[in-house]
């Protein structure tokens, strides 16, 4: 099975994005998700003892659409950030791409393979790092797990020495290799996990929360490593992270998923423009003003008697500014674009849904963005 997207009419016609990519350079398309859907059947556990007892005999199930009709195309060498609040469906999507989960609907192709078939030829070409699980042998030094992976992936001795040398330099593994994994710190362990996953030089790398729980310095190191590795190997990397700094530093392109649905796919700065549909008005006042008096102009972000800032919908900014200047004794007024970080923070915390006028900011099919 080495067919690529163009041989796949469904994939090629699925969305404008997939179509573009497929027609432009079929061999370049590395990951295609086409109407990808995953529905879990979860048992409902009602509260209360009686209800629990009843549930033993009469199980009721609910369907959860963890991933809902997601279309995305990723080309060779792209480093894409995969964002969304907890439970949005990021990990489920990665697991479908890695062949751990079978799609309920639609399909996914990675390197021309259907991941769930778990073909050896496919498995030799990708790696998945789950930040919260480890593949290293807990009671042995990491170097032992490396040797096992060398054999599993059929890496030659010479290649192994070269790759391990390179990874050791980049990640400063030297002193860690011969220490029992259980004795390593979380960050040291993550470095070793990454090295173990990269020994066979995968073309595609899925990283699920690679910096979770790490301190700022270690996050920075891991982040730099991922960037350096991607540049040197032209690897295709899909990364989920909770840390905005990871995404800002590494990803030009981000895909945002919320409640299983893809709601944005494009450049990071585009995200701020698209979702930051409000601007920030900051006023220095000569005379103090009450919160109540301010509330009619917009959402109060900060309030000190003489200095306030307000969120105002983009299209009303100038009108509101004019009204404020007329009504209050304004000493200074500044209008700012929202910070990417703030936008994404509100995306993550789910505020976006409540703030934006329509529940799904982008109508279906417009998800390609930039």
């Amino acid at each position, binding site marked *: 099975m080495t067919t690529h997207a163009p041989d796949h009419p469904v994939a090629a016609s699925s969305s404008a994005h997939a179509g573009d990519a497929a027609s432009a350079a079929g061999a370049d398309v590395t990951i295609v998700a086409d109407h990808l859907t995953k529905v879990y059947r979860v048992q409902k556990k009602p509260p209360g003892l009686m209800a629990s007892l009843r549930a033993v005999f009469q199980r009721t199930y609910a369907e959860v659409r963890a991933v809902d009709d997601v279309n995305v195309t990723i080309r060779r060498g792209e480093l894409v950030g995969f964002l969304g609040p907890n439970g949005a469906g990021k990990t489920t999507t990665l697991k479908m791409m890695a062949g*751990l989960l079978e799609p309920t609907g639609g399909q996914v192709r990675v390197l021309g393979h259907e991941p769930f078939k778990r073909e050896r030829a496919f498995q030799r070409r990708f790696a998945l790092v789950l930040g919260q*699980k480890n593949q290293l042998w807990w009671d042995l030094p990491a170097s032992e797990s490396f040797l*096992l*992976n060398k*054999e599993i992936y059929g890496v030659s001795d010479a290649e192994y020495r070269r790759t391990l040398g390179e990874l050791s330099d980049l990640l400063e593994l030297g002193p860690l290799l011969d220490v029992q994994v259980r004795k390593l710190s979380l960050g040291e362990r993550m470095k070793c996990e990454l090295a173990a996953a990269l020994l066979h030089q995968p073309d595609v790398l899925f990283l699920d929360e690679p910096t979770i729980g790490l301190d700022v310095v270690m996050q920075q190191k891991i982040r730099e490593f991922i960037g350096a590795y991607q540049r040197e190997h032209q690897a295709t990397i899909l990364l989920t992270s909770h840390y905005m700094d990871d995404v800002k530093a590494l990803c030009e392109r981000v895909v945002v998923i919320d409640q299983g649905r893809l709601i944005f796919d494009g450049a990071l700065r585009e995200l701020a423009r698209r979702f930051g549909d409000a601007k920030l008005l900051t006023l220095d006042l000569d005379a103090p003003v009450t919160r109540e008096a301010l509330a009619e102009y917009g959402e109060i972000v900060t309030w000190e008697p003489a200095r306030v800032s307000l969120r105002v919908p983009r299209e009303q900014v100038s009108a509101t500014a004019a009204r404020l200047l007329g009504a209050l004794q304004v000493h200074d007024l500044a209008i700012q674009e929202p910070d990417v970080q703030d936008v994404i923070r509100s995306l993550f915390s789910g505020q976006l849904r409540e703030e934006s006028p329509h529940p799904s900011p982008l109508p279906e099919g417009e998800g390609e963005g930039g």
Partner: protein
Amino acid sequence: MRLYLTMVRLSIADAIQYRVESAIYFLYEMLPPIMMAFVWLTVYQDQSTVAGYALAEMLAYTVGVMVLRGTVTLHVEWALDHEIRQGLLSTQLIRPFNYWAFLFADAIAWRFVRLLFAVPALLAFLYWLGPELRGITVPLERIPVLAISVALAYVVCFYLKLCLGFIGFWTNDIMGITTLYEVIASVLGGILIPIALLPEWLQVIARLLPIQAIYSIPLAIMLGKSEGADPWWGIALQLGWIVVLSALAMVLWRAGLRQYESVGG
């Protein structure tokens, strides 16, 4: 091949880290036959045979159980249960290798480490019972078929324990199942007493279980007690169980993976 040697080597290195636990499990495996030896020494004070077994034969049987418990009784179900519950199975499934072979190699490694304890214990046991065991010989021509039977017992045990371990896909933990298995195996599987000592109707049940292919069949071959008189019949029965259990394991594995996936892999 190099892959599997590396697996065994790593598993041995790993198992050695758990030598204290290994020592405790070693007692768990060895104590039943040792206690039975005391029981038999008492029982045979009043009679010379029990169900056709002379004292020397009965003691040889307990020694045999000890050897089999030390070498053949692997515990792949514990490793599996751990991997399923911790979700570590996910990191195995995405790698291009045969996971069952990995479990097989891992089980061999644990057995190998267990021998460090089992061999001295066995020698002490033999020294103690030596005088009673006089007169027991295994004819040379029976050695090859005995060796085959022991090897097959290992494979039967592997697939049987694999099936037990796969139950972990549906339950929170498999302690209940493994405990139940131990009880059944002790009484009906020939660990404590030869199946021939059971009441008629229990013997029928015991002979329908795969556990006899792990203990009773090799021991019957060793003692020339092959109930079917023909040791090759015992071998055939073991092969039959390997076919049945490996098929069952495959069915459980496929269904179990679907279950594992449905809760999110």
